[in-house]
């Protein structure tokens, strides 16, 4: 991408006394140049798409990037169709960029490491003049980049991050999350589990030994125990573990009849594969069929685990088989462009970009504080999850959560999950204060 008109620089350039190739240096402090960090004053605006391009989540990152490119096409009105802009309840966006400025973007690699993610985000802010950073595929990265954006004075629209912390104890005024979280997973899953497996169950948790694992374990434990389940044990597994046999082998001895795998990504693929290998699902314990539950599902994980996911319950933010207008519109434009249906990561990133653009349009300014104000307590529909609220108190979206099950007879490599229930928003809503943390004030930067 050529950036012929970096707006921030445009200001600087106009300030510089240029003559016949020689110039008298003029010194500016950042303060005097703009009202807020990276204020776009030219004919274009730059967004920063910061996704994992290397490392275990690279495929998820690639799907996020596809969604971002599609969103940019739709915002600029250069795509084959207009995707969710047709179904989005807010009609502020015109398909001529944001506030009439053409949307350009830069990409970076988070490597799923908070250091690399921050380095990449900083280069987008400092070098490329990005006015908004979005993306990511893990909570550690999301929290780190969100804190950076708060300091730098740009908006952060989180990508895939499921930990309660992102909008809980680590929430920031400049950060917004559309994706759901551990608490919602637990609240949505528990009733379905009770309906299908009964209320007299003994659960055994295997939990990845880091923040996301803890919050997920906590959420599922609390909500299943409220249904009458008993938690036999919760064992922490190292993040770097690849073979889970020594954690799974003792499960049957404990007398548990449900195994909950609070794992994500490669951990989940391996632990589920191992659990199925041990034949746990063929066993009869306490005169009940032994069952496995995976609180957070993604299509890529389901693909990695293959046939092992069949019949296993979990939750997900969104799924392409949803029949509402918004989802259909998105699946159609994504599928037409790329030849396969989008993942939930792609969906949340696409929606976040549109929501940001819409908020800017409605606020009439790229100023992070104005954008934040426009997003706070914003209610919208037509983005695939039904009526949704961007809660102002913690910058978390509240919307329907999907409970899904591994499909018994998939018709294609993308058709791995089937929707069991769409849990209504009310059931997964919680009080904004329960996770602690301070939102603070919005920071427009310099």
């Amino acid at each position: 991408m050529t950036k012929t008109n970096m707006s921030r620089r445009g200001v600087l350039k106009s300030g510089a006394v240029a003559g016949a190739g020689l110039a008298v240096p003029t010194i500016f402090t950042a303060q005097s140049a703009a009202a807020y960090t990276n204020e776009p004053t030219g004919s274009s605006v730059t967004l920063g798409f910061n996704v994992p391009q290397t490392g275990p989540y690279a495929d998820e990152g690639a799907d996020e990037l596809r969604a971002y490119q599609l969103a940019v096409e739709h915002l600029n009105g250069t795509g084959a169709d207009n995707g969710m802009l047709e179904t989005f309840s807010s009609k502020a966006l015109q398909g001529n960029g944001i506030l009439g400025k053409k949307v350009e973007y830069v990409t970076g690699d988070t490597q799923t490491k908070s250091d690399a993610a921050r380095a990449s985000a900083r280069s987008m802010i400092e070098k490329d003049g990005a006015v908004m950073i979005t993306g990511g595929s893990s909570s550690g990265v999301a929290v780190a980049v969100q804190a950076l954006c708060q300091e730098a004075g740009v908006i952060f629209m989180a990508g895939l991050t499921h930990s309660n912390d992102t909008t809980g104890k680590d929430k920031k005024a400049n950060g917004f999350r559309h994706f759901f979280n551990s608490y919602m997973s637990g609240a949505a899953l528990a009733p379905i589990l009770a309906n299908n497996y009964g209320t007299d169950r003994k659960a055994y948790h295997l939990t990845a030994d880091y923040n996301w694992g803890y919050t997920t374990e906590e959420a599922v434990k609390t909500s299943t125990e409220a249904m009458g389940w008993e938690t036999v044990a919760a064992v922490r597994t190292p993040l770097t573990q690849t073979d889970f046999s020594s954690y799974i082998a003792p499960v049957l001895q404990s007398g548990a009849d449900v195994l909950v795998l609070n794992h994500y990504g490669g951990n989940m693929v391996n632990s589920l594969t191992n659990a199925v290998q041990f034949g746990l699902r063929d066993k009869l314990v306490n005169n009940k069929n032994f069952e496995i539950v995976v609180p957070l599902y993604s299509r890529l994980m389901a693909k990695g685990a293959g046939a092992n996911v069949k019949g296993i319950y979990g939750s997900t933010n969104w799924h392409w088989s949803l029949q509402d207008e918004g989802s259909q519109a998105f699946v159609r434009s994504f599928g037409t462009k790329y030849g396969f249906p989008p993942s939930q990561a792609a969906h949340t990133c696409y929606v976040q970009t549109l929501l940001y653009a819409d908020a800017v349009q409605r606020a009439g300014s790229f100023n992070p504080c104005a954008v934040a104000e426009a997003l706070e307590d914003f209610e919208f529909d037509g983005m695939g999850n039904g009526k949704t609220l961007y809660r102002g108190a913690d910058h978390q979206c509240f919307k329907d959560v999907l409970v899904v099950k591994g499909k018994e007879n998939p018709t294609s490599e993308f058709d791995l999950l089937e929707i069991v229930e769409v849990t209504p928003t009310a059931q997964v809503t919680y009080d904004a204060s329960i996770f602690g943390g301070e939102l603070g004030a919005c920071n427009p930067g310099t």
Partner: protein
Amino acid sequence: MDAIILQILNGLDKGSAYALIALGLTLIFGTLGVVNFAHGALFMIGAFCAVTLNRILTLSHQVVDPTRTDFLGNPMKVDVPYVFDMFGEAAGQSIIDWSVPLAILFAIPVMVLVGVIMERGLIKFFYKRPHADQILVTFGLAIVLQEIIKYYYGANPIPTPAPEAFKGSFDFGAMLGFDPNTIIYPYWRLVYFCFAALIIGAVFVFLQFTTFGMVVRAGMADRETVGLLGIDIDKRFTIMFGLAAAVAGLAGVMYAPINAPNYHMGMDFLVLSFVVVVVGGMGSLPGAVAAGFLLGILESFASMREVIAFIPGINQVIIYLVAIIILLTRPRGLMGRKGVMED
């Protein structure tokens, strides 16, 4: 009691994977004096041999099924593997089902070839270079190899199931008189253990009882003298490298059903296999095998609930803790020779 038997079983199985990888690593080090950081990549390539064979067997042509529609509402295209056309659906299905064991046959020539090319093309220029240079160049190679695999196969793990016949688990507990379901172990992992034992045995027999093995062992002890005797030790070393690559590759092929292969599985195993080799003693084959099983069993015990409750976090650090203790009590690992890799 049953819990302990179970974890010993577990440890043996884990250890057999460690031992197999470490065996090839220490073989290369012992014979060629090269620290091969690309060994994990060889293991990974082995696993991807299984994936590739599966892909080849499921090569398909598309048939349009007008009665069904895909996600965009167009008529569904159904993939029909060519093996179905050739052998009929039932036979074709069972060929695909058995693709992992079949991949052994496929992997041996591939891995030997990869090993020989690596040795002739790169490693042989590094015999006289410092170990740090060897580490760096093979590390660079490992990165390139895994990125190539990532380019073609993506970053996501690819499920590569074992044949239907090996699904499920075997109930040792019932056999030994414990309650049913207390000591169960998956069939495929038992196969893996036996396979590893077989390969390890074969390598030892090969080195101990064949002329070739004798010459190689002599070369390991004193390369120069063997060269002076007029024996072309270089050629034999090339073959040894191919052999070590094949061992790593086979370990990978058989590992594919245990954990779905991904492009970074080699790096995941690299550090661990080095710890195993060093704990066993650089260049010692029995040391590597013993250390592999030892660390496997200890790791299994450390992951028991009761143990974690007693020493929190022990499962996170056990391997490294054991390595430190062993290296401090036995200066050259379990069975290392003096003067090897100490400068």
